[in-house]
């Protein structure tokens, strides 16, 4: 193989793995949108909040330390203990379930039957509330997130790929971050178990039923509130995973919440209600933006095309397939 081709392959593989993360965030949107018709603007902030909470619990941060110190004139910041990663993740899951419960009981049940735009506005409010609340609870410093997933370039892949280069080429092997590989494996496992859950279990069927026809779902005894709490919890869980992956890569900071913006073009591409659309859409965007940057962006356009390419690709797609990759064509009834 020529070195050029191997470089291209490396770009594509890295794009694929970035795409998996986009898919994951998009999946959070799709879950909530399907089951409750809400476009959840707060999905990105949920990932940030989950990551903050995880780090906070893991490092034994005192919640609301600033507030406590300001009121009581104390100087507490840390409890002085460390919580093992797995246990901390478990606690974070519980926090996100509690969060889901509050969102449904305090906000959603009061807005039943309102226009979608009202619900959307409510989630914008929620997003900013959470952002402030997260900063207040865990402070807004940039933090390192480490749950023990290995990271750094894989020497093994480097060694193997070096052999693939043709005789006499200057090629030093492929750079693939182990963290990305882990992220991919975990995301794939998560998506597969979500799919199995939806397909083969009673709560999963109930979730699909509510997404399909809420009235009929009620008539067979399914409580919409419970299903909403469940989907918001699942979306919270997805947010944790996304938060861990992204946080491990670039630290826990405000910009983490912006991964939601990466999920938007994925949704435009894959459709707002299709789980497979979210997955395939994420991969296409991930690979597409990296290849475009490598082949066209850097050589011809001065680079930095990743900021806008995904949206343009999605827009082009939208014009030709408004219903998304797998959505059914909507024909207006006259």
């Amino acid at each position: 193989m020529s070195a050029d081709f191997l470089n291209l392959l490396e770009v594509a593989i890295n794009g694929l793995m970035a795409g998996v993360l986009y898919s994951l965030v998009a999946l959070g949107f799709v879950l909530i949108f399907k089951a409750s018709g809400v476009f959840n603007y707060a999905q990105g902030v949920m990932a940030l909040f989950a990551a903050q909470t995880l780090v906070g619990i893991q490092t034994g941060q005192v919640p609301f330390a600033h507030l406590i110190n300001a009121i009581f004139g104390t100087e507490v910041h840390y409890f002085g203990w460390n919580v093992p990663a797995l246990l901390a993740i478990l606690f974070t899951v519980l926090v996100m379930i509690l969060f889901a419960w509050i969102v449904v009981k305090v906000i959603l049940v009061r807005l039943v039957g309102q226009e979608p735009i009202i619900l959307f506005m409510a989630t914008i409010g929620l997003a900013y509330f959470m952002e402030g609340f997260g900063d207040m609870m865990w402070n807004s410093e940039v933090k390192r997130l480490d749950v023990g997933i290995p990271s750094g370039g894989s020497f093994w892949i480097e060694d193997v790929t070096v052999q693939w280069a043709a005789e006499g080429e200057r090629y030093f092997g492929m750079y693939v971050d182990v963290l990305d590989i882990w992220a991919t494996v975990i995301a794939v496992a998560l998506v597969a178990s979500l799919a199995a859950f939806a397909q083969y279990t009673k709560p999963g069927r109930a979730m699909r039923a509510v997404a399909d026809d809420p009235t009929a779902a009620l008539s067979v005894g399914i409580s919409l509130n419970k299903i909403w709490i469940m989907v918001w919890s699942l979306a919270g869980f997805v947010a944790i995973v996304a938060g861990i992956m992204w946080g491990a890569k670039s630290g826990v900071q405000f910009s983490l919440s912006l991964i939601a913006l990466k999920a938007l073009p994925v949704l435009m591409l894959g459709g707002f209600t299709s789980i497979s659309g979210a997955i395939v859409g994420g991969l296409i965007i991930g690979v597409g933006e990296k290849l475009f940057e490598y082949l066209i962006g850097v050589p011809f356009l001065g680079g930095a095309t990743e900021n806008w390419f995904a949206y343009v690709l999605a827009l082009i797609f939208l014009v030709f397939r408004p219903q998304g990759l797998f959505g059914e064509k909507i024909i207006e009834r006259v």
Partner: protein
Amino acid sequence: MNDMSPDGYTTPDGRQIGGVMMEVKNITLRFGGVVAIKDISFDIREGEIRAIIGPNGAGKSSMLNVINGFYHPQEGEVWFNGAKRKAMKPHAIAKQGIARTFQNIALFKGMSTLDNIMTGRFTKMNAGFWSQCLWKGKAEQEEIENREYVEKIIDFLEIQAIRKTPVGRLPYGLQKRVELGRALAAEPKLLLLDEPMAGMNVEEKEDMSRFILDVNDEFGTTIALIEHDMGVVMDISDRVVVMDYGRKIGDGTPDVVRADPAVIDAYLGVAHD
């Protein structure tokens, strides 16, 4: 029929009808200025096939929606199994044993026939949440038992051929049948059918009539149904409530209702549809 014994009565074809299972008392339901139901009372007895008829917009569907909790009447009481019912959410009423079908088919279109009917068994599956997620222990057992029950219903309704078909792709008549199957899966005490035969051809109507009679006969299910086809109504129902403009204008056996001048004036006299 108003002086009926509280213990029940025997139908002309010799079926024994029991005491009162569901009773609505002085129900009034308004939507803004529109009075959909005005001061209506009637009862449904154990084992009975009870029809509700009336012209379009008479308030028939609204009545079923009150019974299964989609609508909450401004006035009146609903009594079920001898107790006055509090205002409840529809899913809680479903748990009490009331299942239904809809005038404009409300199936889970993306799911297969099997999954639709399986979803109908929602209230019959009680294994804990985590057990269900992991498909272990009680949940696994439950899933298997319920699947068997669903297969029985599929056999009963003769829809084996479409078990795995997404219901959105089925013709109208079969969709109606699957919807009936989903309601039956709950093993309801009271089954509400909103125009189960609307839009069907003669043959399909005959099939559906037969299924309704068989359900009543084999499972002893009490049925309340709305239907426009007078021939069918008079054929299969034990007693009929007639509604017009939200009011009750007649109530009794098909023979009594057919002969009632008020009913003839308001409804039967004019050709329907």
